């Protein structure tokens, strides 16, 4: 699945450059990248969490943290900052620290370019040689892209709360049960479609990077197709995927009724136990793209739903009904 983040591997320099345009101003992006309470929520590839022991962003300062992989493996990291120029540039030496002397060392740089209210971020890793870079690229490219996509989804709702829309409800079942019913296709097809729609296809590959492709038919025979790409599956607490409309071959398409509706939205399911048989389900849709028409459409819909219009539409409808 294509993402807004992309990688460049220069032929003449042993670098891996990962880049993305973010829907947030530069000062905000700098802030979330330099404060432990923010960066711990999105740093690393999909499914990774972080324990941060120390983060002191200044020349000679250290960032000591352990990344916890989705497979349970721990990755100790040490960063020693060299140059720090808020809000646009920093560089550092990266290795595994004292906990992991074998951890792979590299030189890292981060640069932020302001583009209006948006920010272009560039992460650059410099390895010891082109050959070493090519070896590292085998795993680091995908991880770097995922890292920037996570940052994008984290920072967009901070820049504008309308970039996230939330619904929640508590259900009288265990966390595990709710997680299964919201993630496995044999359950999903029993509830996750509008009433009266027939499921014509529901094909799921439930793993990070896997997809769920489904087709629904209305009673009058029209078909609606959608596709989901899983980003994070953390039993039984979190499920993250990208959601789109599609055609029946699984190609991403625009919303059949509203072409400026976001082509992709990040959907986050959080399962929060409130008792042995009581679990709150919170679903967030996040627009982390950079298209102004898409973001305006997303905002319009959600602003009106969350009461941001203060009933102005209702008022207008009343007026129109009377005239």
């Amino acid at each position, binding site marked *: 699945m294509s993402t807004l983040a992309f990688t460049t591997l220069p032929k003449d320099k042993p670098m891996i450059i990962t880049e993305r345009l973010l829907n947030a101003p530069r000062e905000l992006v700098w802030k979330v990248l330099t404060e432990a309470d923010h960066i711990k929520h999105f740093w690393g590839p999909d499914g990774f969490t972080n324990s941060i022991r120390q983060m002191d962003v200044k020349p000679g300062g250290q960032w000591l943290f352990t990344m916890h992989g989705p497979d349970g493996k721990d990755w100790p990291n040490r960063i020693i900052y060299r140059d720090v120029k808020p809000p646009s540039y920093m560089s550092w030496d990266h290795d595994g620290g004292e906990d992991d002397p074998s951890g792979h060392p590299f030189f890292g740089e981060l640069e932020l370019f302001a583009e209006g209210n948006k920010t272009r971020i560039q992460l650059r890793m410099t390895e010891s040689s082109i050959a070493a870079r090519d070896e590292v690229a085998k795993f680091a490219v995908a991880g770097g892209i995922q890292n920037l996509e996570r940052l994008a989804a984290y920072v967009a709702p901070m820049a504008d709360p309308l970039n996230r829309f939330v619904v929640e409800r508590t259900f009288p079942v265990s966390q595990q049960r709710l997680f299964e019913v919201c993630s496995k296709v044999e359950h999903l097809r029993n*509830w996750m479609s509008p009433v009266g729609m027939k499921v014509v296809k529901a094909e799921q590959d439930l793993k990070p990077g896997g997809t769920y492709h489904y087709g629904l038919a209305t009673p009058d025979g029209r078909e609606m197709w959608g596709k989901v790409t899983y980003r994070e599956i953390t039993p039984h607490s979190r499920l993250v995927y990208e959601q789109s409309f599609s055609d029946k071959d699984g190609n991403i398409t625009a919303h059949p009724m509203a072409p400026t509706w976001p082509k992709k939205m990040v959907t986050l399911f959080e399962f929060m136990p409130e008792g042995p048989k009581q679990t709150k389900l919170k*679903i967030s849709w996040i627009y982390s793209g950079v298209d102004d028409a898409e973001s305006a459409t997303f905002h319009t*819909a959600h602003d009106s739903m969350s009461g941001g219009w203060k009933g102005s539409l209702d008022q207008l409808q009343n*007026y129109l009904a009377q005239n």
Partner: protein
Amino acid sequence: MQSLADPLSLKLAALADPTRRAILQRLGKGTANVAELAKPFAMSQPAISKHLKVLESAGLIERGRAAQSRPCRLAPKGLVEVEHWLNAYRAMWEKNFDRLEAYLETLTKEEQS
């Protein structure tokens, strides 16, 4: 940027701006011309005219042709389509939650029997 040629997208894009929503709200109280509409905003008449143009091409307002002042009024059916779409969207997850609740109940009953 995608094409805004279809009516619903045009309307949603027009409604995305708070000034234009305020203009619609003002027109909800009755017909007004550009000068009257510009008054409550710290905006020039040409700036308001631009917003009116967007609202007009989205089919949300109508403007008189005859008079110089071209009085504006709400288009009678302009918002119906938007309302339908938003209502459907709003209702979708509420209904899905209802279905999920019913499905969970079925599962629990099956296990108990």
